[in-house]
């Protein structure tokens, strides 16, 4: 029999957002419990596994060969006709750097949470929220068929894209189909690749998204796709996988590979939510729709927000105040770190999904010819404007 129990901070979900939250809550003195519904933290992987390097320092995460699969020196954006825009890490900044082993990465972060004093339980699901005086006060949990209550002064909802906690708590996390990308990926072995670069293929090969080739060694890569949900028609089952299969079939260097893993999933690509907290609860990571809407990368934002959530959770316990009002410190903290960038990248995404192949070709051609020193959205748009002002018409409000 698993007994009912009581903790200061309950973290639901042991992905990066949850583990970093749990680590910082525990480190700051809160009795912390983290529960994970899967039997194994980090598995199954649902990720392209490309991350930037810069933010790891900020969080004190030391790169470890246990979870680094490969290091690239840059990224390439490739248009439908094959115009290649090469970005070095210095220029692109955002999502290039390491290609990681996400399962090992997630486990390493969970170990850090445990080392900081957080208790961890796996194969344990939250099945509903507990309320007291109208506020969230814990969850009803299930482990090996047994149900028990976990009372908590603060709940951190880090339960991923499929998050239930936010909805149960009355936080609006709903997504429009245009703000969802549906993803599928193979890890392919024995393929022909350039191990220096992570590649991004844009255009009709992946409607409203892109195809990625993220390097995992001299002859291996994650080859995956994101397709905008609003571009998938009713009755068109398995569109993401089919688009990817068609792309691979056209490339002998990839088609000869052996798939050693298949990965499925979905990412949000929305504007920052208006609110990710309620009385007794803070949402973090994919559950809070914090994924970068342009790249689909979520690990960095999840970890950066997780640190703030953990710290604020511990402060709330100390202050004896788990109110929505107290959690505004968390709202302020994560928004200061990346809300503006999320919003800008959402705007850019909204424009990019409207472009046809000919436009991608023209834009990539101009950028491939230019010797780019620094890459930012503004610089890119100005370069294109010089040669194809008509292409930029739609983007004029971004240039101002």
């Amino acid at each position: 029999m698993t007994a009912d129990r009581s903790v200061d901070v309950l973290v639901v979900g042991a992905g990066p957002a949850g583990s970093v939250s749990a680590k910082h809550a525990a480190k700051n003195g809160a009795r912390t419990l983290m529960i994970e519904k899967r039997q194994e933290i980090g598995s199954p992987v649902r990720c392209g596994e490309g991350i930037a390097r810069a933010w790891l320092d900020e969080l004190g995460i030391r790169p470890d060969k246990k979870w680094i699969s490969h290091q690239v020196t840059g990224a390439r954006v490739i248009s439908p006709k094959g115009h290649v825009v090469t970005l070095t890490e210095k220029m692109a900044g955002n999502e290039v750097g390491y290609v990681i082993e996400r399962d090992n990465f997630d486990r390493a972060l969970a170990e850090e949470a445990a080392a900081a004093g957080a208790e961890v339980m796996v194969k344990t699901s939250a099945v509903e929220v507990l309320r007291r005086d109208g506020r969230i006060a814990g969850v009803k949990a299930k482990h090996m068929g047994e149900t028990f209550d976990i009372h908590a002064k603060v709940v951190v909802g880090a339960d991923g894209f499929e998050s239930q906690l936010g909805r149960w708590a009355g936080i609006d996390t709903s997504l429009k189909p245009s703000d969802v990308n549906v993803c599928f990926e193979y890890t392919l072995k024995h393929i022909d690749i350039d191990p220096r670069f992570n590649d991004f293929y844009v255009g009709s090969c992946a409607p409203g998204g892109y195809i990625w080739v993220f390097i995992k060694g001299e002859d291996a890569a994650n080859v995956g796709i994101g397709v905008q949900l609003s571009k998938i028609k009713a009755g068109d089952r398995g569109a993401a996988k089919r688009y990817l299969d068609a792309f691979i079939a056209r490339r002998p260097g990839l088609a000869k590979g052996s798939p050693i893993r298949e990965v499925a999933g979905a990412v949000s690509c929305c504007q920052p939510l208006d609110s990710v907290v309620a009385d007794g609860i803070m949402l973090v990571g994919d559950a809070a729709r914090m994924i970068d809407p342009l790249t689909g990368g979520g690990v960095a934002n999840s970890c950066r927000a997780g640190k703030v959530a953990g710290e604020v959770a511990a402060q709330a316990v100390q202050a004896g105040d788990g109110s929505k009002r107290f959690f505004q410190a968390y709202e302020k903290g994560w928004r200061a770190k990346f809300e503006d960038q999320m919003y800008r990248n959402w705007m850019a995404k909204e424009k990019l999904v409207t472009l046809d192949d000919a436009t991608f070709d023209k834009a990539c051609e101009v950028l491939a010819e230019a010797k780019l020193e620094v890459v930012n959205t503004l610089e890119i748009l100005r370069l294109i404007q010089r040669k194809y002002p008509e292409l930029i018409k739609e983007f004029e409000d971004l240039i101002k």
Partner: protein
Amino acid sequence: MEKKPRIERLYCMHCGACVGCCPENALTLQEVWIELLPNCTGCGICARACPVGAIFMEAEK
């Protein structure tokens, strides 16, 4: 006749894409399976969202 999603277990990778897209919160990701709840309205967004085509919209028996 109203259609409801049927999840083909042999295709499903329990990734949760359908769950996050459901406007009614009528799907949940359990440890290693997806569960459909009675409040499903049959809108079919889950079938569109499934990356591998594991969800079939079928008339209820």
